[in-house]
């Protein structure tokens, strides 16, 4: 059975990607992980890798096409002569058998341009909840769930001389993200102060022992955060359809400011890494962000997030929760103050203040 490769979500704010180049042609055999095409958003050019090995059966778009995130870019098959579904939206069986989607599930699949075959079914039929669970886990955003970014008709223009100006892509993206935080998460914030000396000493000793160029303070803090989340899975979850969606891996989102662009880079399966491999993995995605060469894997699927504005000498910042993240920790360390702050925005549907305060107090101490 043919299987589809979908347009990736490069970042949370772009629902459209533009195809820049194909690196394969119909008939080619590609291995899992081979780069098959390049796509571009307003912020980055990203290489798209094959998720599975197989022959390229059909290209569903052309160079310069603008396609919706989640739509089918190309079809692959185990043999070169497999039939390709007529449209990007198909409703055949899932891996285990002939599981048909319900009408509501089919409508959502169509809206997203998703192949029913990629979505696991929990029962005899592929349900709406199955699709919603799948898109939550993969960071795919529904168009009708994106809050309006235009000025409401009921909103009056200020009674001061001026003009309405269209937002640019980044401004629209930020407005969408902030609106998601406002409309979906029950977001609140708390913070704890701590004496940074123990962490600074720990990081300095680690840097010296490993001859590191970059201070490992933030990577070590982030790694400790991952370990605490691993030990307390409750913090590594979100809510979907009124149920708790417990993430299996800890995929750490880590903000990187690259010029004017703020990326949420992602280290996947961070809980499976030892300290130094984690630091190296984080260093790699940071470099890719600066180079504007982030892959889909490095910009999607965050289950937790971390941010620091210590570089800018900020004393407090209250982060916006990335979609489907219930916790984002914000680090600040005003220079010369002798104190540092760990703050956290959290989704109160998932976590209580006690959960978060306890985690922050543990995080304030380096590992023994």
């Amino acid at each position, binding site marked *: 059975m043919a299987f589809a490769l979908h347009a990736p979500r490069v970042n949370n704010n772009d629902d459209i990607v533009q195809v820049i180049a194909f690196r394969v042609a119909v008939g080619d055999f590609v291995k899992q992980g081979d780069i098959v095409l390049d796509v571009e958003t307003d912020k980055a050019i990203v290489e798209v890798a094959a998720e599975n090995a197989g022959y390229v059966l059909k290209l569903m778009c052309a160079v310069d096409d603008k396609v919706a995130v989640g739509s089918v870019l190309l079809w692959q098959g185990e043999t070169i002569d497999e039939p390709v579904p007529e449209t990007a939206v198909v409703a055949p069986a899932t891996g285990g058998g002939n599981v048909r989607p319900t009408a509501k599930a089919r409508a959502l699949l169509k809206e997203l341009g998703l192949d029913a075959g990629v979505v696991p079914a929990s029962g005899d039929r592929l349900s709406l909840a199955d699709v919603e669970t799948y898109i939550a886990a993969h960071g795919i955003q529904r168009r009708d769930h994106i809050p309006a970014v235009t000025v409401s008709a009921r909103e009056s223009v200020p009674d001061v001389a001026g003009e309405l100006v269209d937002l640019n892509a980044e401004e629209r993206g930020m407005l969408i993200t902030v609106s998601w935080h406002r409309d979906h998460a029950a977001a609140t914030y708390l913070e704890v102060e701590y004496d940074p000396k123990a962490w600074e000493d720990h990081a300095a000793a680690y*840097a010296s022992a490993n*001859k*590191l160029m970059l201070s490992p303070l933030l990577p070590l803090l982030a790694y400790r955060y991952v370990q605490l989340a691993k030990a307390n899975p409750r913090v590594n979850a979100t809510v979907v359809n009124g149920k708790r969606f417990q993430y299996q891996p800890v995929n750490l989102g880590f903000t990187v400011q690259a010029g004017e662009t703020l990326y949420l880079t992602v280290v996947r399966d961070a809980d499976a890494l030892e300290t130094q491999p984690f630091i190296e*993995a984080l*260093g*790699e995605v940071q*470099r890719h962000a*600066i180079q504007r060469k982030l892959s889909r894997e490095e910009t999607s699927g965050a289950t937790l997030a971390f941010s620091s504005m210590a*570089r800018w000498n900020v004393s407090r910042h209250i982060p916006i929760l990335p979609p489907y993240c219930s916790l984002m920790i914000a680090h600040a360390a005003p220079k010369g103050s002798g104190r540092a702050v760990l703050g956290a925005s959290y989704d109160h549907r998932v976590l209580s203040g006690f959960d978060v305060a306890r985690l922050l107090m543990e995080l304030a101490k380096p590992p023994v």
Partner: protein
Amino acid sequence: MNLDRNAIKAAVRAKVIELAKNLGMDASDIGDDDIIPATGYIDSGAILELVVWYEDAYQMPLRQEEINIDNLGSINSMADFVLKRKG
């Protein structure tokens, strides 16, 4: 790309000074053997930018484990590492 050792050193020095200037620091007196992270002229974010610039300027992609004090810690070591890799 000029692979003369003095030219590499001059280019690295200029980049460090530029990055430090962005942070409000004057790094013009940095020594060739000074350990760049220890000087305090540039922070981790700027060191990351320095590394990315270095990879691009000398068309020399680095493995993460190569980004260490021994290879890139000072102006001299950065110049030597280019010549070692390109030599």
